[in-house]
């Protein structure tokens, strides 16, 4: 029985991928959604690198995608770029937004390294530049920071972070 079910699943998966490519049925059309560019940063406290600290990243779209890492001997951490395929962008009335959050807990306190809601599902260069180079000094207070949107200059970005660039 289990075999039969998985057989059907495989058959459906094949059909889906086939028609997904040709776009024969609109309902199988998916669009790529950029959830996060590559992330690189260093965590320090009073200028001293903090190693062994767990850093998390949550990316929301249709659901939450979560990963985490631990800082190395020099306080460095990184996350890979992440993209998904989704039907949502092509649906009338769908206004789902991406949310990127990066943070860490240290000695019982939560530090927010990045909180951003991009205005779309494609990469934003100015945000990617910042995420590729995060200096996270835990003694610096979190602020809301506004910066340019290179792709859509009329709509600047705003993030919350303890990092400065």
């Amino acid at each position: 029985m289990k075999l039969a079910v998985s057989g059907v699943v495989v058959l459906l998966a094949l059909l889906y991928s086939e028609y997904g490519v040709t776009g024969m049925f609109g309902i199988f059309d998916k669009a790529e959604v950029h959830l996060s560019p590559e992330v690189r940063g260093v965590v320090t406290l009073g200028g001293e690198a903090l190693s062994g600290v767990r850093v998390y990243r949550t990316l929301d779209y249709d659901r939450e995608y979560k990963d985490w890492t631990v800082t190395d001997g020099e306080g460095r951490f990184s996350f890979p770029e992440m993209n998904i395929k989704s039907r949502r962008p092509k649906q009338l009335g769908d206004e789902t937004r991406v949310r990127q959050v990066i943070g860490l807990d240290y000695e019982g306190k939560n530090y927010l390294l990045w909180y951003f809601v991009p205005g779309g599902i494609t990469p934003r260069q100015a945000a990617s530049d910042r995420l590729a180079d995060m200096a996270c000094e835990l003694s610096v207070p979190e602020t809301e920071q506004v910066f340019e949107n290179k792709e859509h200059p009329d709509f600047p970005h705003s993030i919350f972070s303890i990092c400065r660039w």
Partner: protein
Amino acid sequence: MRTISPRMAAEFAELVYQFRSANSEGNYRIPTAHLSLSRAFDLNLSGGPVLGKTGGMFGLFQKTSGFAILGTGKQAFLGHHVIAVRGTATSYDWLTNANVGVSASFNGSAVHSGFNATFTSMQPALERLLTPSMEQPNVRGLHCVGHSLGGALASLVADWIKVRYRKPVNLYTFGAPRVGMVGYSRSATAGIEALHRCTHGADPVPNVPLWPFIHAPVSGAEYRLDNSSGISVSAHGMGEEDVPGYRNTVNVEDWSQLQRRSENILSPVVRLDYERRHEAFFSGQWADKLSAALITLLKDAGYYSAVLAQATIGSALTFYDLLAKTLEKIAAASGRFAEQTKGLLGHMLAFARVAVTTVVDLTFKFIRWVFDQTAGALYRAVKQAIERT
């Protein structure tokens, strides 16, 4: 009463889409420093956002039917409040349901029963959110804002606020569907200080539900923000990446910078010649024209008020059944009305892209079938993959 700028209205309409539950680590922020609204309004998040139906806090909001946030004015907007509303997945089903019913709105006029049910589910939470602000002295006015279904809900909220708190109300909608019938639109037109209804030419949503639902104001005035035509799904989008995207097309400081046009949607007299039916094609313009032709026929035959009244009180018949029965009666009454009915039905078939547009007879059954084809074509455009993943 002051109005908020087109840019600010669009910022609010999009901002409600950014609200979601905290992530699994409990992080929750609302970035607003990049928006012009942050210089005029503070967001009140102390009680969380307003939810319809299932209630509860953030975690449940995917399952709820409506959703709103409140902004409190400062400086030049001291004494002003903004309420921005959105619909959620479950309530979008109402947009694609051709067999809509009507129910009595807060002010007693006939409105879309689905939109009204969603509004009603939000009402207690709205009351809790708004009453403290509305009881303060010097309330200068309330601005209701919404995109898409949120626009329909904002319209019902505006009416309710007017009656409940007796304060001046402005309404700003982007790509909103029609909410009610003539009586509702008249009362909304009269009760709301300024009504800014924004549309894109190819946005299908402002075309539904079909007549007898009409937009307010009854003058048909709207801001048509682009020159697109036909029907396209992306024309409905709010965001900066959408084409054209309401954020992009209203990103100006003053309403006078936007093109205002007015098509009198109530009075145009349209009688359609059966032989010219092939001129009709699938577009928002023809959807309006078919509505006008239907109204003209009902008026010519003296059935207009009777149909409206019957539709309003509701009955076992669906609205299209009632219309089809009436047209069958009208067509049987005289040769002239039979011709006019035939002209209308032929154009409807051409609009709906039915292969054969020959009107074979004027029975209830056939007329009802033509209505199904017409409504079906329009709703299919709206429905395109609306079922969520």
